[in-house]
C-alpha cells in the first residue's frame, strides 16, 4: 500500500480542473501547467527510485481488496515509462509556450494537455483491464480535442477519421474485455493471469488476446492498422504532434507488452510469432512510407510507425534481453522522436513550411538547428555512441541468440533506410543553397524554442554515453516482466 502512486494521476487531473477556470488568463495557465509538469517529472523520478529500491508498489483504490477493487500498480517498466512520458510532456509544453497561438492557448489547450497526461499516467499505472480502457478513453478524448483545436479544414477532416478509428478500437477493446470476463470472471490483470493459466480451454482466450493485440496495435500503429497515423499527426500543431508521436503511440505499445508478458504468455510460439511477423512488416513498410515522402512532418510521422516495429520486435522475441532492448528502445525513441518533431516545428517556424522542397540552406543561416537535427537523426538511425545504437544492438543480439535471422536482417536493413531518409531531410532542408522563393524568416524569434529541443539532444547523447547504467535498469525491468509471479504476488 502506497498512496504515492496515485499522485501522477491526481496531479495532472487537479491541475487540469483548475486550469479550466483560468482559460482567459494566459500567465496563470502557463505558470500552473509548467509547475505541474515539473512536479510530475520529479514525482515520477522519485517513484522510479522507490520502485527500484523496494520492489513493485501497489495501491487498492478505496481500500477494496485486490481482485475486486481497482488496483494501481507501479513496477519498473511502468515507472520508467512514467519518467520518460513526463519528461516529454514537460519539454513539449515549454516548446508550446513559444509556438502556440493565443487562440488555441485560450481555448483550454493547457487544460486538455493535463487531462491527456492524466490519461497516459493512468494507463501506465493501472492494474485493471477495464480501468485501462477507461484511461485510454480519457487520453483519447483529450487527444481528439487537441487534434481539432484551431478548427482548420484539414484538422476537422482528419480528426473525424481519427475519432472514428479510435472509437472502433475502443469498442473492440470492450469486446475483448467481455470475452475475457465471461471466461475468467475477473478484470484484475494479476488475477486474470492466474485464472488464464488455470483455464482448461484456452481457444477463446487466445481469440480475445488477438483482439487485444489489434486494439493496442491500432493505438500504437502496428502493421495493418497504421494508415490513420501519418495524416492525422501531420495536421496537429508541432507540440501536439510531439506529444502524440512521442508518448501516445507508445501507450499502445506499453499496453501490448504488459498484456502479452503478464496474461497471455501460455502459447508463446503462436501469439508472439504473430507479433514478431507484424513487427517486421511494421518496420519495413513504415520506413518505405517515410522514404517516399517529401514533407518534413509526414516523413517523421512514418518513422513513428517504423520505430514501433522495433519496440514490438522485442516482445515478439520474448527473452529478457530482447524485452530490455524493447524498453530501452521505447525510452530512447520517445526522446529522439519528440526531439525530431520539435526540430521540425522549429524549422517550420523559421521557413514557414514543412515541405522539404521549399527549404534549403539552413546550415548556413541556422547552424544550431541543423546540428540538433543531425545528432537526433543519426541517433534514431542507430549510430554509436548515441542512445539509438544500444537499443538496436540489444534487439539484434537477442534476435541472433534466438536464431531469428530474418527479423534481424529486416531490422538492419530498416536501420540503414532510416539513415537514408534522415540524410534526405538533411540534404533538402539544411544543405544546399538558401531557398530564394521561400527565404527563412529573419530575426531570432526561433531562439526561445531552442532550449527544450537542446535538452532532448543532450539527453540522447547522455543516455548513449552512460548506456551501461540505463541498460542495467531496463534489464531489471524486463526481468520483472518475464517473471510475472512477482507482479501477481505484489497485487494479490
Amino acid at each position, binding site marked *: 500500500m502506497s498512496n504515492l502512486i496515485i499522485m501522477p494521476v491526481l496531479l495532472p487531473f487537479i491541475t487540469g480542473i483548475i486550469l479550466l477556470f483560468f482559460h482567459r488568463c494566459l500567465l496563470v495557465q502557463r505558470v500552473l501547467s509548467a509547475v505541474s509538469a515539473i512536479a510530475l517529472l520529479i514525482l515520477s523520478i522519485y517513484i522510479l527510485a522507490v520502485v527500484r529500491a523496494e520492489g513493485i508498489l501497489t495501491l487498492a483504490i478505496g481500500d477494496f481488496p485486490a481482485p475486486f477493487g481497482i488496483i494501481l500498480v507501479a513496477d519498473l517498466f511502468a515507472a520508467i515509462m512514467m519518467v520518460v512520458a513526463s519528461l516529454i510532456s514537460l519539454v513539449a509544453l515549454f516548446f508550446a509556450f513559444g509556438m502556440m497561438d493565443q487562440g488555441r492557448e485560450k481555448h483550454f489547450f493547457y487544460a486538455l494537455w493535463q487531462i491527456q497526461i492524466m490519461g497516459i499516467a493512468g494507463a501506465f499505472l493501472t492494474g485493471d483491464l*477495464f480501468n485501462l480502457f*477507461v484511461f485510454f*478513453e480519457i487520453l483519447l*478524448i483529450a487527444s*481528439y*480535442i487537441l487534434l*481539432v483545436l484551431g*478548427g*482548420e*479544414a*484539414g484538422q*476537422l*477532416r*482528419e*480528426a*473525424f477519421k481519427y*475519432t*472514428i478509428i479510435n*472509437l*472502433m478500437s*475502443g*469498442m473492440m477493446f*470492450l*469486446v475483448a*474485455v*467481455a*470475452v475475457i*470476463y*465471461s471466461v475468467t470472471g475477473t*478484470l484484475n490483470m494479476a488475477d486474470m493471469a492466474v485464472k488464464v493459466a488455470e483455464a482448461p480451454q484456452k481457444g477463446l482466450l487466445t481469440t480475445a488476446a488477438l483482439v487485444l493485440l489489434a486494439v493496442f496495435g491500432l493505438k500504437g500503429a502496428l502493421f495493418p492498422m497504421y494508415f490513420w497515423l501519418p*495524416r492525422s499527426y501531420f495536421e496537429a500543431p508541432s507540440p501536439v504532434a510531439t506529444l502524440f508521436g512521442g508518448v501516445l503511440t507508445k501507450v499502445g505499445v506499453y499496453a501490448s507488452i504488459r498484456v502479452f508478458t503478464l496474461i497471455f504468455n501460455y502459447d508463446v510460439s503462436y501469439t508472439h510469432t504473430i507479433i514478431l511477423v507484424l513487427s517486421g512488416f511494421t518496420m519495413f513498410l513504415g520506413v518505405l512510407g517515410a522514404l517516399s515522402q517529401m514533407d518534413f512532418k509526414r516523413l517523421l510521422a512514418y518513422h513513428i510507425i517504423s520505430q514501433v516495429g522495433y519496440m514490438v520486435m522485442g516482445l515478439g522475441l520474448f527473452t529478457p534481453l530482447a524485452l530490455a532492448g524493447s524498453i530501452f528502445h521505447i525510452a530512447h525513441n520517445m526522446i529522439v522522436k519528440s526531439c525530431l518533431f520539435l526540430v521540425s516545428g522549429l524549422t517550420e517556424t523559421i521557413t514557414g513550411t514543412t515541405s522539404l522542397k521549399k527549404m534549403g540552406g539552413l546550415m548556413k543561416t541556422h547552424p544550431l538547428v541543423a546540428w540538433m537535427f543531425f545528432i537526433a537523426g543519426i541517433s534514431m538511425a542507430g549510430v554509436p555512441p548515441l542512445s539509438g545504437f544500444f537499443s538496436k544492438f540489444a534487439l539484434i543480439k537477442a534476435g541472433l541468440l534466438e536464431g531469428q535471422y530474418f527479423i534481424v536482417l529486416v531490422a538492419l536493413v530498416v536501420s540503414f533506410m532510416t539513415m537514408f531518409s534522415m540524410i534526405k531531410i538533411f540534404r533538402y532542408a539544411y544543405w544546399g543553397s538558401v531557398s530564394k522563393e521561400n527565404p527563412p524568416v529573419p530575426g531570432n524569434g526561433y531562439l526561445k524554442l531552442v532550449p527544450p529541443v537542446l535538452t532532448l539532444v543532450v539527453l540522447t547523447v547522455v543516455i548513449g554515453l552512460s548506456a551501461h547504467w540505463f541498460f542495467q535498469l531496463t534489464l531489471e525491468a524486463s526481468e520483472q516482466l518475464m517473471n510475472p509471479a512477482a507482479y501477481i504476488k505484489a497485487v494479490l
Partner: protein
Amino acid sequence: MELVISITIGILFAVSVYLLLSRSLLRVILGTAMISHAVHLMLLSSGLLKRGAPPFLIKGAQMSYVDPLPQALILTAIVISFGVTAFLLVLAYRAYQELGSDDLNELRGVEDE
C-alpha cells in the same frame, strides 16, 4: 435467453458495420452509436443472464443473485460512448460547415498520395 441476445448482438454488429462503411458522415456516426449498443449487450451477457434476482448477496441467505459488475461496466461504457458521440456530431457539423461536404469520398484529403 443467451441465444436471443447473441443473435441480437450479431445483427447489431452487422448493421453498424454496414453503416460505418457508408460514405455519409451522419451514417457513420449512427454506426458508432449502434456498435456501442452491440458491445454493451455483449458485456451484459458476459456475466450470464438471469431474471428476477437483485445484484445483492445477503449473508446466510441461499439465494441467487445477478453479477453486478457487467452493469457497472456498461454504465461506464455508455457514458463514454455518449460523450464521444456528442463530440462526433459537433465535429461532423463543423467539418460540413468548413469543407462543404459530408461525403467521405470527397474528404480524402491529401492529393499527392
